């Protein structure tokens, strides 16, 4: 594996390209809005007042920095490398999503937009957007697939409680992909007064770049904290990848370090079945939601349905920077199945008293396989991107029905 690479500083280029990936494949109606967003973002991040306002909110409102925790019992149970957890699950609203939603929400306000829209899969980004809208006094609509509304009832209720309107996406596969289509269609229609808060490092430029910039605080804190705790950088950093925002935010500050980076996709029922969301592992380059990236598609370019037990990983595309990092070899992308994620989730519950989100459980599951193969002197950091409260209904159904992994220990 490549330890160091010197080329990443240049991405994205001015056209929003990460190597051949990225770009702006959107209807002409949106092009001016993207240009406007690009300059507004550039101005904002170079304005000390914006930076300090965001910093203030992240600290006093969201509760950052989130802890970096040495998971000793999990480490013991696996009998290999030392495992540390970056506790994004302790961020306000229960996931890393708020980091980005706060950034974009502040930007929306700065641009004079009164209305924000968002798409959501698991509901975490929807909840984060609804939260930010409430905090900043903006009107918020969240597009969510009908299928996901069923799977994530609790988050739907939370969004409504926070004053957001949840709009079901009833087209296509009725999951995150279609919620994003509907959000884009709404944006095309109301582009003058609406700010679209995209929840991951996906979509047309400048979104993948902007979201990475708002999420890189995860990796920056981790870097500082691990240096403080053990006096050196970790050997490996692991994060789950759906669209890939927690992973991008975690990886980016380590890109030029001698640290192995590993992204974990959802293999669903298995890579040999047609029910998975392993875009980087099994997809081919194509265009989805405005970006050229790896994509699950048929030979004619029709987008295929993704599957994962985790609604947040259930996406047939992936951020274009991940596509680039896969091709350059800087990041290694693996995948774990629904069952492996469920088992890892229970292991973390019982060894550490932490119920992770099903998404984050995929990163844990990869480490369950990886840690025992490494010596005790090595250090792995897992980005624990979110907490599992939203998943308890899914877990109840799955674990009661299948007895998956059992309940005793």
């Amino acid at each position, binding site marked *: 594996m490549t330890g160091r690479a010197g080329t990443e500083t240049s991405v994205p280029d001015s056209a929003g390209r990460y190597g051949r990936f990225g770009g702006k*494949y959107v*209807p*002409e*109606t949106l*092009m001016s809005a993207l240009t406007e967003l690009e300059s507004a973002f550039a101005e904002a991040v170079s304005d000390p007042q914006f930076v300090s306002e965001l910093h203030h909110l992240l600290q006093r409102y969201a509760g950052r920095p989130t802890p970096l925790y040495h998971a000793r019992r999990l480490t013991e149970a696996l009998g290999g490398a030392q495992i540390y957890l970056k506790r994004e699950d302790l961020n306000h609203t229960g996931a890393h999503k708020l980091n980005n939603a706060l950034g974009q929400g502040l930007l929306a306000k700065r641009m004079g937009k009164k209305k924000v829209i968002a798409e959501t899969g698991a509901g975490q980004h929807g909840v984060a957007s609804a939260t930010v809208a409430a905090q900043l006094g903006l009107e918020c609509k969240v597009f969510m697939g009908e299928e996901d509304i069923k799977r994530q009832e609790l988050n739907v209720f939370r969004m409504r409680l926070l004053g957001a309107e949840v709009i079901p996406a009833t087209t296509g596969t009725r999951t995150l992909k279609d919620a994003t289509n509907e959000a884009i269609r709404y944006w*095309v229609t*109301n582009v003058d007064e609406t700010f679209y808060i995209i929840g991951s490092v996906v979509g047309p430029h400048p979104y993948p770049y902007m979201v990475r910039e708002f999420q890189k605080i995860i990796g920056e804190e981790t870097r500082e904290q691990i240096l403080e705790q053990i006096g050196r950088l970790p050997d490996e950093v692991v994060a789950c990848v759906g669209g890939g925002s927690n992973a991008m935010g975690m990886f980016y500050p380590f890109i030029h370090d001698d640290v192995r980076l590993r992204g974990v996709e959802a293999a669903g029922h298995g890579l040999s079945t047609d029910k998975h969301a392993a875009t980087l592992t099994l997809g081919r380059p194509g265009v989805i939601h405005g970006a*050229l990236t790896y994509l699950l598609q048929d030979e004619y370019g029709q987008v295929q349905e993704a599957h994962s037990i985790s609604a947040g990983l259930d996406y047939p595309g992936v951020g274009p920077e991940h596509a680039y990092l896969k091709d350059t070899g800087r990041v290694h992308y693996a995948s774990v199945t629904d069952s492996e994620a469920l088992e890892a989730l229970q292991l973390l519950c019982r060894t550490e008293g932490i119920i992770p989100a099903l998404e984050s459980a995929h990163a844990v599951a990869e480490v369950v396989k990886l840690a025992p193969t490494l010596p005790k002197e090595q250090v792995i950091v897992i980005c624990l991107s979110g907490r599992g409260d939203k998943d308890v209904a899914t877990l109840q159904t799955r674990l009661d029905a299948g007895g998956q992994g059992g309940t005793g220990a």
Partner: protein
Amino acid sequence: MSGVKNRIDELFAEREKKRFIPFITTGDPSLGTSVRLIHALIEGGADLIELGVPYSDPLADGPVIQRASQRALQAGTTIQHVLEVIKELRDSGVTIPLVLFTYYNPVLQYGVGRLFERLAECGGDGIIIPDLPYEENQEALAAANQNGLHLISLVAPTSDQRIAMIGEQASGFLYCVSSLGVTGTRSGLNSNLVPFLKRVRSCTSVPLGVGFGISTPDQVREVARHAEGVIVGSAIVKEIERNLPLLEKPETVEEGIAKVKTFVQTLSSALK
């Protein structure tokens, strides 16, 4: 201007003549019925036809064309089939310009160069790719020029300072999006349409086609006062949808096609 000359340029050679441009989702409800519907569009007064390639994620389309895409995909329609339909139409003596309307991903998977070459061989005249803006279209533009096809650009009410560069590159005709939003009928025309079209006109030498939200003879007449071409998509696709019970049965398909043709005539006759 690209220097490409084909049936589209011939059609618009007499600028004072207004042209009716219907859109159809190819393969809705089946390929065979689509071909018959296209003939009906021509008999009903079509001067140029946009043949839509069904797509799983039609971002720029409203619910009517989304549903048509789903039906066509369920019937097994691929981009290859749409090319074959164009060839079949030419073989049966159709002489009006035919333009492929497709999202970019199917083009990319087919191979940009290969698709444009094949489209030209089959008898197509142009291609519209709604999610391929100016900044991303170099490869497609080169392939279009190389194969004597027009890459039809789109310009929107939000294009603003972009109008000049788009207008200068425009080839065949310039597709003017009448209002913000996705395809689909609107109750009225955008009140800023006329100043928008005037601005576009001042930035290009190619004829203007106006689309999005045009569904009645009155709207067709009104738009034609300011543009050479009037594009109607969702309204026709909706009429096809309304007549699906007839179109899906062999004994009544003729009757269904006749109804669609009558509807198209009421729109196209507004230009005569």
